[in-house]
């Protein structure tokens, strides 16, 4: 088993390479000769930035607007999901049966339902009732131009704000269930002796939680939370189905309007890949640095 992985060329390498290149070659061959697809990558850069003749400057085009929207959803969504998930995770380890029931049913309900079905149900409920109650649009219309400029940078174009908010809430409520499980596992991973020791010192349960348990739980919770952040970026593509104009949505639009289906979808997939893979690598490096520092604390 422990044969060293030397860089020599074995029979298995030959087979694997032959199969891999054979498959790729077959797909490319079929695309050229059976499907008669004409590849044309020249239009793609124009979907990122375009020159606006009226304003006389370069402006962001659909793809980069979609990318920005995805990033906005990821940032705000993870903050909100962290809040919901943190509270629900605390509920799940609470001593009160009421809070435990509340946390349990929230988590089980969401984790056992397809994300798509949850998003559709919640969207109908949300668009019908919750957002009119919040009256976002009217309060937005009253905002000063400077404020609305900041708001546009933070939350996207104002005319799309109600739409963005419903997508954001769906996503946060959905991911919150997964965050809650991470938080619960983190708290339960702290040894029982810590609770007992704190109780012996005369600390109140709330003080114990805040000053003893949570600081220790934080260390176990951070790596899976980073993974959940990446999951959230991936799941944010789902809200394109309730017409939040993030990257998958703009990809669909562009693929239909330009007819460059293959190029657009490959580009969108590559963008998601760069975003998620880059973040995963970054988190891994941060984690190993933290661990190195953590192993010699004094």
């Amino acid at each position, binding site marked *: *088993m422990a*044969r060293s*992985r*030397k*860089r020599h060329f*074995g029979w*298995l*390498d030959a087979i*694997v*390479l032959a199969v*891999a290149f054979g498959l790729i070659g077959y*797909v490319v061959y*079929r*695309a050229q000769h*059976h*499907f008669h697809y004409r590849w044309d990558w020249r239009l793609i850069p124009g979907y990122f930035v375009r020159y606006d003749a009226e304003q006389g400057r370069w402006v962001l085009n659909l793809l980069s607007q979609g990318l920005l929207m995805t990033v906005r959803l990821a940032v705000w969504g993870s903050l909100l999901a962290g809040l919901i998930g943190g509270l629900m995770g605390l509920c799940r380890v609470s001593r*009160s*049966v*009421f*809070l435990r*029931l*509340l946390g349990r*049913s929230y988590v*089980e*309900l969401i984790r*056992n*339902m*397809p*994300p*798509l*079905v*949850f998003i*559709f*149900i919640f969207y*109908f409920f949300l668009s*019908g*009732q919750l957002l009119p109650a919040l009256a976002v649009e009217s309060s937005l219309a009253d905002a000063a131009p400077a404020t609305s400029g900041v708001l546009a940078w933070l939350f996207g174009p104002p005319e799309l704000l109600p739409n963005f908010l419903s997508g954001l809430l769906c996503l946060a409520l959905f991911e919150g269930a997964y965050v809650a499980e991470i938080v619960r596992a983190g708290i339960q991973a702290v040894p029982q002796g810590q609770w007992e020791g704190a109780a012996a010192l005369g600390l109140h349960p709330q003080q114990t939680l805040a000053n003893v348990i949570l600081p220790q739980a934080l260390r176990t919770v951070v790596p899976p939370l980073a993974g959940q952040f*990446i999951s959230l*970026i*991936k*799941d*944010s*593509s*789902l809200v*394109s189905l309730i017409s939040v104009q993030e990257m*998958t949505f703009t*990809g*669909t639009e562009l*693929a239909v309007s330009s007819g460059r*289906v*293959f190029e657009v*979808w*490959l580009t*969108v*997939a590559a963008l*998601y*890949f760069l975003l*998620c*893979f880059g973040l*995963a690598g970054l988190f891994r490096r941060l984690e190993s640095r933290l661990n190195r520092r953590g192993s010699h604390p004094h």
Partner: protein
Amino acid sequence: MLFTADTKRRRRAGARWRAAFDALAFSLLVLGLGGLLVAGADALHYNWQWYRVPQYLYRIEGGEFHAGPLLQGLGVTLELSALSLLLALVFGLTAALLRRSSSWAGHAVARIYVEIVRNTPMLVQLYLVYFVLAPILGLDRFAAAVLALALFEGAYAAEIFRAGIEAVPRGQWEAANALGLSRSAVYRRVILPQAVRVVLPPLTGLGVSLIKHSALVSVIAVADLTTEGRNLIADTFMTFELWFTVAALYLALTTSLSLLVGWLERRVAVGGAGRG
């Protein structure tokens, strides 16, 4: 502090009362949320028509049972999930074995596959398979859905298999090598039979997540449970009733599988402790 038996008993009784009170409060909360939903629907002048739902589940004509669109959709969901699960196991096992092989090319291919799948959204993968790969290879939408789901879950299955193989103690490898077994015989006779025990519970979990992800194929109009639900809603405008029914069907399916996972985990754990 010393507890007498009396204070202990009083404490336990108090805890029981508190639990009962909490359960009551929770049911009140659920009722309140339900009431809020109904009140909201009333405000929209929503016309509840629950009595129309059963006919979309099943019909009994002349003593014969006919599955309605929703149950047919459930059947398609199950078929789709089962086929994709089988294919995902093949992809996953291949990727896991390649990753553990001494071949650098196999290692690279498996790594690229897993990283691409894990770092792009399932929806985008589905679009890639359906809009790019399917027309090139001439696949129909059902085959495209199966392929996309299997490719997606296969990458996760690969990690499960890898963990399962690595969980087999080193001594088993060494003993098998000492007996002079060939590398493939070591895998077939010694390692994989032991890895299966470790791998079975997480694989059932994979099945649950596959059923949930299979709802996504409704965006390419494969006639699964979600698609049937969406079509019926477009026809009848019974948005809430039908979505709740669809969600309940998924919930029943996934929770029963989750219970199965729990049971399997307990069984495997007991068996492992007894024999180990």
